[in-house]
């Protein structure tokens, strides 16, 4: 392992751990009511997000979903503004207006984590169209779930990208479920990658628990996109450990043994083993994990110390200029 690959590998490990620790913390404080609203965790899927984003350049674009914590961290986002967002603070990445379903950090090329299922696909297609028109060589990657492939927006986004041979990569994070509905109930194809056939789009199926494999698959897709070969469909076979959203008061779906089976192939555990095998020292890996945990603690401290938004801020960002504040709130 050269130093450079080593760096890349450690970075993948670091980002996966950041996600895991960030979410463990978020789940815990959500249970105590410190985070309002719904919280959909990405735990179990880290290799999918990190492998994919590591295959992108910094200036490439990425669009995600309601399950929004993992993608921006995978793309390199700093944790402080993300945690502050979860707490609804003015310093949040979305100034407290987006919350858990929208942790999108535009500074790292994240163009939205959108919670309307399927709605990100046309947006990513449009970013790819923008790149094509500008000729700036950027690629747009879109994450979505198995469930999202039932939506018309998914179809239209893929179709446009295929017709126009846009520099786009469509990553279906197939975790086997849409809320409580198993893929076999909501999808007619044997494997999600078959969806690509309706667009004559090349497809790759990859083990979503293996961050290197994901990175390699996406790298191939990115290369095709960047060299004018058009879009690729990548299915990452993965799993979410938690119920659809956490702390819902009851479990929506009891998946029994299955969860334990998947946990045996935990992406972080697997990768740690691989890195150890490749000669990285346990100390190095432990240090990275401590750093990730510290970053999360720091982010939480920052978030807790941050101010809440003022009422008037509810009227910013509807447009580039603020909209009028009604009298009854003018001095609230």
């Amino acid at each position, binding site marked *: 392992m050269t130093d450079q690959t080593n760096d890349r590998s450690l970075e993948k490990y670091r980002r996966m751990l950041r996600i895991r620790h960030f979410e463990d913390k978020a789940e815990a404080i959500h249970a105590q009511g410190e985070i309002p609203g719904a919280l959909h965790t990405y735990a179990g899927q880290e290799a999918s997000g990190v492998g994919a984003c590591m295959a992108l350049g910094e200036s490439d674009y990425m669009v995600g979903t309601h399950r929004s914590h993992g993608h921006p961290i995978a793309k390199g986002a700093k944790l402080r503004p993300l945690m502050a967002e979860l707490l609804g603070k003015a310093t949040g990445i979305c100034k407290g207006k987006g919350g858990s379903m929208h942790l999108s950090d535009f500074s790292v090329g994240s163009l939205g984590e*959108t919670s309307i299922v399927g709605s990100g696909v046309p947006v990513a297609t449009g970013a790819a169209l923008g790149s094509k028109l500008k000729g700036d060589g950027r690629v747009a990657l879109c994450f979505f779930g198995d469930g999202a492939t039932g939506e018309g927006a998914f179809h239209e986004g893929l179709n446009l990208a295929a017709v126009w041979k846009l520099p786009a990569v469509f990553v279906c994070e197939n975790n086997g479920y*849409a809320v*409580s509905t198993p893929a076999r109930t909501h999808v007619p194809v044997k494997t999600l990658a078959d969806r690509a056939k309706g667009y004559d789009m090349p497809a790759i199926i990859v083990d979503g628990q293996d961050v290197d494999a994901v990175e390699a698959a996406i790298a191939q897709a990115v290369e095709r996109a960047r060299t004018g070969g058009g879009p690729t469909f990548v299915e990452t076979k993965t799993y979410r450990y938690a119920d659809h959203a956490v702390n819902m008061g009851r479990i929506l779906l009891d998946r029994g043994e299955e969860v334990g089976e998947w946990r045996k192939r935990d992406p972080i555990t697997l990768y740690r083993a691989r890195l150890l095998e490749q000669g990285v020292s346990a100390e190095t890996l432990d240090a990275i994990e401590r750093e990730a945990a510290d970053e999360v603690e720091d982010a939480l401290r920052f978030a807790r110390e941050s101010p809440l938004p003022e009422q008037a801020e509810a009227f910013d960002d509807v447009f580039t200029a603020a909209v009028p504040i009604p009298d009854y709130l003018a001095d609230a």
Partner: protein
Amino acid sequence: MAKVTYLEAIRQAQMEEMQRDDRVFIMGEDIVCNVFGTTTGFVEAFGLERVRDTPISENGIVGAGAGAAMVGMRPIVDVTLSSFLYPAMDQIVSIVAKSRYIYGGQAKLPLVIRSCLFYGNANAAQHSDRPYSMFMNMPGLKIVAPATAYDMKGLMKAAIRDDNPVMMFEDGTCWSSKDEVPDDPDFIIPLGRGDIKREGTDVTVVAVAGGVPVALKAAKQLAKEGISLEVIDPRCLMPLDRELILRSVRKTGRAITVDPAHQTCSAGSEIAATIAEHAFDALRGPVLRVCTADTHIPFSPTIEKALFPTVDRIAAAARRLVGIEQPAAA
């Protein structure tokens, strides 16, 4: 009569109508798992054909509901949250609302489209819509937005029995409110009839959906100040019980509309315009609107709550109206 919640009223209404008429079936995303509790026991009672999990495909399932209705079924399509109606607008507008007309009455569409107004709970702009007003601008859709368990049960049953498309808007802020609800399997509240939720003499407050309990609280509070509010709940927005509203305004001479929708082009605006057009002679002051501010719904609870109609805003509006004592115009 038993005291049940608004959510339980939905469940009972559906259950009774599905027992009564086997053309009624329900489909939606995760309807089997039954996220909010409105289909508890349904799979056991009716099986997986009539209680049908669907792909995530709002346009598809609404359109499939329309097609099934056209061939004689009576589908209930649960779109979960009102925010998920937008992807289905194609079928709601072009098929559901228009088919009967376009084909000169050949088509009949006994279809119920359910969705929850899910706001005030820190789920941000993409999950917090209250879009009934948009649909009011489209002929061909009956629109119901109950505020109590009693009304919900009677209206939901009427909706399922209606031979026309009905959109049921279920206000999440009313979910846990309880009410005495009749057990009579033929308890029905006809669509299009409003209700006086509280009689009063000084100011008519026409309140929509979750605005009703807020208006009632305001009425209670103002009663202590000697101001008497009459709270009218239209319950159905299409058809709208204009007569009930106008009668009340003619009595009180003052009107406030309360609507959790964004103010511009809201049901609240429509009702205000109707009053200004048809009861102007009786008006002793402006028709005031207490709606949701014209901005998106932010995540942070600190700045979310005050955007919706509040007791304070209704009270302030009422005080202003009774303070403006002047002879009736014209």
